[in-house]
């Protein structure tokens, strides 16, 4: 006889499968690398508290981001290729509002002797304080103004970020044990070191407006954007007059214009020297400003300001776009002889900002007075002095500042603990576009914008412009997520029999065979519907994120444990699609545990239910099983057909075993609620009848 030459390979047990999911483009684009796919998916399932936990785990101040984030994630969202991006920011805002993000942060324990001073309490400083305090450092934040928040407080208008949000975050930090010293301007770093601080993090922001460098800039009635916003935000009410010009095209310019409008100036004009395409301000901000009847004059720049009889006579020149600069933006070129005049009551300049007096700290500064730091260690030319945020990068977004603070916290920790500063390699990112072939097959669902206050109403006060989703809109919007990078993969190529089942069943035609006969499921095309996984005869395919699949077993066990303790008979198990269950009130209709022993097993799309799951429910004591899918409302394709096929297979098996086929049925949660209720009642009755009959039969046998 031959001897064994084949080693036994042990495949991991289903429950031991590890997460192979790839980083989706939204997460890769987010400066904080928030686990966006995960929390969007949790919102889609109606698990708001869990979503909130995920949001909190990667973002120190999510409630701030929920209002003012520039959402790079939505720009990277691949749903753009199908219809339009998932409304991630609004979903996050919904989770925070409905999840009640008012929880108290427990005080962090001090585990390190080193103390850290943070100069400036903008988003970068606060994020750094948050993380360092969590790591166990004693942290003091020094703020020159009377209130913390930096640009969040003095730069961003209230209609974009309500101040309560900032106050709550401040309280949270204080609760954690961060010491906050307002009205304290730091004049000497050496003094801080003398006071016993081991490291200093400078995040003084960029509060100094750039000058236009034109004649008459010093005239009364010309004010710079940063100063103007600061005054308004700190409670002053500068009188601007009726006719206001704002110079610039960034977010500060738009903020200044909209703030001026809210202060009562009825005629606000923005002068921008390029066109709308080049405008650096966020697209929604621009369109909202236009809705509020703010005029934007493109390709126009002031060249001279004269004070004449209590008004400002502004000489402007028309521009045309010339060559591209090194950033790819086309340079504006003045058109000779195109000067024209306009009169305004006030002119607000908002053409950029730089850090204020950064050189005073004795750190090396570079272009635009920004502080120069080592890109890896974030340390300046002075030992123990780190810097980050706008002070280093020049004006940037809130989320970039938060990310800078988070990174600085890690680097300061490395420095204090004498570690080599290394970023750990994260999860591999998924790259690649959706092919036009796949896009064609993805069901189109239009993006649902969160409601906004009408432009007439909102222009009068500083109340938030964007409103929150209701429960149904939020879950439906979250269901649009394509779940990039967590789809199917052939984990066990050696088990794969190249039977082509996956290739034949995929509703999106994603799997393909290469010349060698090996089947591939390209991660960037897979839509994570799970059909191939449930159909693969070799069980060689798994979800990259196995938990979304395996939890069916856990939920089933849980339901069975519950009903074995319950006195309600007969026991009925309902496998229900968890997406959309909550928004539609369907759950309330299905969950009537007291009326009959109905127990719900939530599944993430019924396409993931295998015949084995249903048989197992019966084996463990269910008298009847129903499957409730979303039917035509499903965000995926073909799920109905597949669940129909699998049910047919199970019914045949039930018949073979001697159980009635009526014990398994399929509902459609998309139906009218009344109709669904009737059907469920009918089904419950049938099962009760069968149950009674079987009990009687047993009695007779005895």
């Amino acid at each position: 006889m031959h001897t064994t030459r084949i080693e036994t390979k042990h495949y991991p047990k289903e429950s031991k499968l590890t997460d192979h999911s790839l980083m989706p483009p939204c997460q890769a684009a987010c400066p904080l690398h928030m686990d966006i796919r995960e929390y969007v998916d949790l919102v889609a399932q109606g698990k708001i508290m869990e979503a909130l936990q995920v949001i909190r785990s990667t973002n120190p101040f999510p409630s701030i981001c929920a209002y003012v984030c520039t959402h790079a994630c939505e720009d990277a969202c691949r749903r753009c290729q199908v219809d339009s991006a998932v409304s991630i920011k609004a979903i996050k805002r919904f989770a925070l509002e409905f999840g009640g993000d008012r929880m108290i942060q427990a005080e962090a324990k001090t585990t390190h002797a080193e103390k850290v001073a943070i100069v400036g309490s903008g988003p970068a400083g606060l994020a750094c304080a948050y993380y360092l305090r969590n790591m166990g450092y004693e942290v003091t934040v020094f703020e020159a103004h009377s209130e913390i928040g930096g640009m969040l407080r003095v730069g961003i208008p209230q209609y974009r970020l309500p101040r309560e949000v900032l106050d709550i975050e401040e309280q949270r930090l204080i609760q954690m044990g961060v010491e906050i010293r307002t009205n304290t301007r730091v004049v000497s770093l050496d003094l801080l070191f003398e006071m016993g601080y081991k490291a200093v993090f400078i995040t003084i922001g960029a509060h100094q407006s750039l000058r236009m460098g034109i004649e008459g800039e010093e005239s009364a009635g010309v004010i710079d954007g940063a100063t103007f916003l600061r005054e308004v935000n700190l409670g002053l009410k500068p009188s601007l007059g009726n006719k206001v010009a704002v110079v610039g095209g960034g977010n500060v310019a738009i903020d200044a214009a909209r703030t001026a409008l809210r202060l009562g100036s009825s005629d606000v004009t923005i002068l921008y020297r390029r066109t709308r395409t080049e405008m650096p301000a966020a697209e929604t901000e621009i369109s909202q400003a236009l809705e509020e009847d703010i005029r934007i004059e493109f390709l126009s720049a002031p060249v001279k300001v004269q004070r004449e009889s209590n008004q400002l006579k502004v000489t402007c020149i028309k521009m045309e776009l010339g060559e591209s600069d090194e950033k790819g933006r086309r340079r504006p070129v003045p058109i000779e002889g195109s000067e024209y005049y306009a009169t305004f009551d006030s002119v607000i300049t908002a053409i950029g900002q730089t850090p204020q007096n950064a050189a005073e700290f004795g750190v090396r500064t570079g272009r635009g007075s920004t502080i120069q730091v080592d890109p890896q260690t974030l340390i300046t030319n002075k030992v123990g002095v780190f810097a980050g945020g706008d002070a280093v990068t020049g004006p940037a977004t809130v989320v970039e500042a938060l990310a800078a603070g988070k990174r600085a916290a890690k680097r300061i920790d490395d420095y204090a603990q004498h570690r080599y500063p290394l970023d750990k390699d994260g999860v591999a990112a998924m790259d690649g576009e959706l092919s036009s072939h796949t896009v064609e097959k993805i069901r189109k669902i239009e993006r649902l914008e969160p409601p906004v206050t009408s432009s007439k109403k909102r222009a009068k006060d500083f109340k938030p412009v964007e409103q929150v989703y209701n429960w149904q809109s939020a879950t439906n919007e979250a269901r649009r997520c394509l779940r990039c990078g967590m789809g199917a993969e052939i984990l066990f190529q050696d088990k794969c029999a190249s039977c082509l089942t996956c290739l034949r069943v995929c509703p999106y035609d994603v799997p393909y065979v290469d010349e060698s006969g090996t089947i591939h499921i390209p991660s960037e095309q897979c839509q994570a519907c799970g059909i191939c996984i449930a159909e693969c005869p070799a069980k060689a395919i798994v979800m990259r994120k196995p938990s979304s699949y395996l939890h069916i077993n856990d939920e089933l066990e849980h339901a069975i444990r519950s009903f074995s303790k319950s006195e309600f008979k007969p026991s009925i198990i309902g496998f229900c699609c968890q997406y959309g269950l909550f928004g539609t009130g369907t759950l309330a209709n299905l969950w009537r545990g007291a009326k009959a022993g109905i127990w719900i097993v939530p599944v993430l799309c019924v396409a993931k239910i295998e015949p084995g799951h249903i048989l197992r429910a019966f084996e463990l004591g269910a008298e009847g099983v129903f499957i409730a899918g979303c039917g035509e409302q499903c965000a995926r394709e073909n799920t109905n057909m597949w669940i129909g096929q699998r049910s047919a297979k199970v019914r045949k098996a039930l018949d073979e075993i001697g159980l009635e086929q009526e014990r398994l049925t399929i509902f459609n949660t998309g139906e009218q609620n009344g109709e669904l209720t009737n059907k469920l009642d009918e089904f419950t009755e049938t099962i009760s009848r069968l149950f009674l009959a079987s009990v009687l039969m047993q009695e007779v046998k005895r």
Partner: protein
Amino acid sequence: MIVAEPKPLDAIRQMIAPYSKVLIVGCGTCVTVCGAGGEREVSFLHDKLRLAQAKNPDSIHNYFEYTVKRQCDPEFIDLLDAKTEGVDAIISLACGIGVQAIAEHFPDIPVLPGVNTTFNGMASEYGVWDERCATCGDCCLDETGGICPITRCTKGILNGPCAGPKNGKCEVSKDMDCAWMLIYQRLERLGQMDKMRRYYPARNYQAVPRPRRIVVKSNVAAGEENA
């Protein structure tokens, strides 16, 4: 590829009635592809048997499952050695070859067929299998335009069509194409109608002595095998 279909559950339950510890063995090749005996079907049978036992607790069995890469090779069956300790019977979900290979390997354990090995065929679409080859050992596809009359003609005649076909369909079933009509059309298309006009003598069934064996070993002249 070999195509099989699951035996009715009742038949399997009757077979295993006398045994308590039962190992269900799948095969990762043909029966996986045709959905009759791969890892998924092994666990589906396992689930069905357990449910049947739960609903009808007359006889108690312990079930275990395992799927090997290919049951028709002894090296792969070696992997079962560790799994068969104390096993009273093995249900093989492979074709008849696999069942026999396992039986040969474990002379002391009864091996039971879990599927009916049905034919050699191909998938014409997802979930549909059609017979294509009767493994007669005397291939004549060159003469018949690549369409096998032995397999695809109900009568298996070599000089067709018979008088039965109507509108290109076999008299046995309206859904079944007449193989000889297909052969005719194909030969016409290939410009080989002369092959249609030829007479084929009866086949020599003596050419197929069973069981057949093929020895493919190079560099070994006949009679030198044991030298």
